[in-house]
């Protein structure tokens, strides 16, 4: 990749010749065949199948909750993931997952380099998909370059229209699938076509169609090089034992054209065929060494190996290897892979801890929760017989998909609990609707003789005896100073 705007040999330039914008060379990645390309096709197929397929899986949660296996219910402020369900206040679980994902990415990167970028990143997967369609319609590298140079014609227009229409279609499918994670899939898909889906749904589909088209069709490698922050700080995770796509200069140099039958003595194995450059989706020359734009996809490895087959030399002039091994090989020593390092062990440990934390939070999650707000205006009421009364608002959270029946008690000696709406009952049973928050007003009445003049801390305890759940929330009983 080159950002040069002038020839490097030039020493001066006229002010008027400084361009308004930089001219970046367009990349025309060439088709390549080989085991790494096959692996990339497989990964792409699996990831796209997951993306488009997952919202259709059903999971029975009973009559009061959605039956979609993975669903983020934004209006209901709930997220469902198989057996698990989280509420907005449990978003720390998602935070934990994100931390685990980030550390997991660091771990993989320290170990295997930017394989995420080369294989699994949506930018790579969708760009690959868009390039595949482009190749079907406009042909391979040489034909595309030729088509670009050709003057306007009906044939060119037809190819261009077919390509962009296909891209927009894929974009719509992408945006269309995204909303399935936030809506009941079998309901929202027909609604999309009948015009019954909400504005937010159509806006999301339109926006993601546009961004998919823009990112995978137009911006492509520029996203990785100029927009992605991860590309910028990946070097922090790299060391000499990190696996990278690399050219072996000791073996390859001195490079030069080679005719069949010529001797390989006194020269390198690189025949300067430029296949590694032509297949590169980011348009770099890997022979210049490890560089920021390399997404570690390894297509140049396939390209070079196929050339090595043709000229009868062993594979691996360009290969997944480590900086240490290149040095060892150059010095004629045996290469060694060193996966267990302080860096990888550290990342592995933090990743494991984060995942354990998330798992614990999910498993230990109580389906019943409560919070209490003591009245502050006024903090207490004097009743006609001299008794004191405090008022509280209790928020009872039924975080399960079934109705719950709970009772409220207070461990305040002498205190009597009165639930508004159930004044006549002793220890009334309160029904909590599934997946809902109920706010109840509770009064605690304390005989005048039991008041000592100092505030008394106590707990409200909420029991669901049928399910054996209890939650205690601390609060305080206030009264006048004596």
């Amino acid at each position, binding site marked *: 990749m080159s950002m040069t705007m002038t020839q*490097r040999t030039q020493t001066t330039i006229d*002010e008027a010749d400084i361009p308004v914008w*930089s001219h970046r060379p367009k990349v025309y990645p060439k088709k390549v065949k080989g085991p790494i390309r096959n692996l990339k096709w497989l990964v792409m197929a699996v990831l796209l199948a997951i993306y488009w397929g997952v919202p259709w899986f059903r999971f029975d949660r009973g009559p009061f909750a959605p039956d979609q296996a993975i669903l983020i219910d934004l209006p209901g402020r709930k997220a469902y993931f198989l057996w698990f369900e989280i509420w907005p206040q449990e978003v720390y679980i998602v935070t934990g997952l994100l931390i685990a994902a980030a550390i997991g990415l660091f771990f993989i990167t320290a170990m295997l380099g930017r394989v995420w970028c080369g294989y699994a990143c949506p930018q790579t997967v969708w760009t690959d998909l868009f390039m595949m369609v482009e190749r079907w319609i406009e042909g391979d590298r040489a034909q595309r370059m030729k088509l670009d140079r050709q003057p306007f014609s009906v044939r060119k227009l037809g190819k261009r229209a077919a390509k962009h229409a296909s891209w927009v279609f894929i974009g719509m499918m992408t945006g269309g699938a995204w909303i399935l994670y936030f809506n009941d899939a079998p309901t929202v898909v027909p609604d999309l076509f009948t015009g019954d889906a909400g504005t937010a749904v159509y806006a999301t589909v339109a926006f993601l169609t546009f961004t998919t088209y823009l990112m995978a069709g137009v911006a492509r490698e520029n996203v990785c090089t100029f927009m992605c922050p991860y590309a910028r700080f990946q070097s922090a995770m790299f060391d000499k034992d990190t696996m990278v796509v690399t050219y072996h200069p000791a073996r390859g140099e001195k490079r030069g054209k080679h005719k069949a039958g010529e001797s390989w003595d006194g020269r390198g194995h690189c025949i300067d065929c430029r296949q590694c450059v032509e297949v590169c989706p980011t348009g770099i020359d890997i022979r210049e060494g490890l560089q920021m734009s390399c997404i570690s996809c390894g297509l140049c490895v396939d390209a070079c190996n196929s050339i090595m087959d043709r000229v009868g030399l062993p594979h691996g002039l360009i290969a997944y290897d480590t900086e240490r091994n290149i040095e060892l090989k150059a010095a004629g020593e045996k290469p060694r892979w060193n996966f267990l390092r302080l860096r990888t062990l550290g990342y592995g440990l933090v990743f494991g801890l984060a995942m354990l934390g998330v798992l614990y939070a999910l498993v230990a999650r109580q389906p019943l929760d409560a919070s209490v707000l003591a009245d502050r205006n006024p903090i207490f009421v004097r009743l006609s017989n001299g008794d004191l009364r405090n008022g509280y608002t209790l928020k009872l959270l039924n975080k399960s998909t079934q109705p719950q029946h709970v009772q409220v008690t207070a461990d305040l000696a002498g205190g009597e609990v009165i639930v508004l709406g159930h004044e006549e009952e002793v220890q009334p049973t309160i029904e909590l609707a599934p997946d809902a928050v109920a706010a109840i007003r509770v009064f605690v009445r304390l005989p005048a003789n039991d008041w000592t003049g100092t505030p008394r801390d106590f707990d409200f305890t909420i029991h669901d005896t049928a399910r054996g759940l209890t939650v205690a929330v601390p609060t305080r009983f206030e009264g006048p100073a004596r």
Partner: protein
Amino acid sequence: MSEKRKYEVDPVTGSAIHPYTWDGIGELETPPPRWWVLTYAVCFLFAVGWWIAFPAWPYISGYTTGLLGYSTRAEVAEELAAAKAAQAPYNNKLAALSYAEIAADPELSTFAMAGGKALFGENCAQCHGSGANGNVGYPNLLDDDWLWGGDYETLQTTIEHGVRSTNDEETRQAMMPAFGKDGILTREQVDDTVAYVLSLSGTVPADPAAAERGAQVFADNCAACHGDAGAGLREMGGPRLDDAIWLYNGDAKSISNQIWNPRHGVMPDWAGRLDPLAIKKLVFYVHSLGGGE
């Protein structure tokens, strides 16, 4: 470009170096990417389009309104209308049901209490306090002591017609005579009555003989409204005197003042100011504050 200057080219990056240098340090004239320049231009055009379509430029006493006629006020009005429409089914139900039926429906009672709380803050909090705990001369609505009664129907009557309201013939009327000022009782009799009244709520009188004399004065002059032994008489609006709650304070001096030259609070009649549904919400809210009967 008026003059054609020659720029040095940086050998590493290939970018031109701006001729202005500082201590030999120059700045590269690296051009921005094309998409960036184009986005910049599009943003400018977008801004111009925005000025035309939306309210943008102020003048001395107004502003350009824009072709789309957009206004945040109109948007608020729309949202308020939408909120009203969303409340309509609840309000209709509320108007049709009795208080007991509302109380039996958790969703509806939450709605009624929320509405009542807002109305209370707007109309009642000025005298009764934002927490409804009252003040000297303004009844506390949280406790279990009521001048006129704390069940739904009584509360509704009190709110609709007020207390000693001059505009409403059906208003609640209760006037305590100025026993001292108008010469009905002597100073000594008033003092005796104070001693007796204090004893009703459990204070041991300093002078038991005075309290005993006060009992007779009370029976002759006060019991008609305040009930026998100060138990209160709601039909007359006569406050209970044998409990821990006092409207005009419960110390001897305050009670003496109240007997000598009583004060009387006034509550407006709200029937003409608030619609029946608003009053219904207020009744429901006040009833829920802890003293509801």
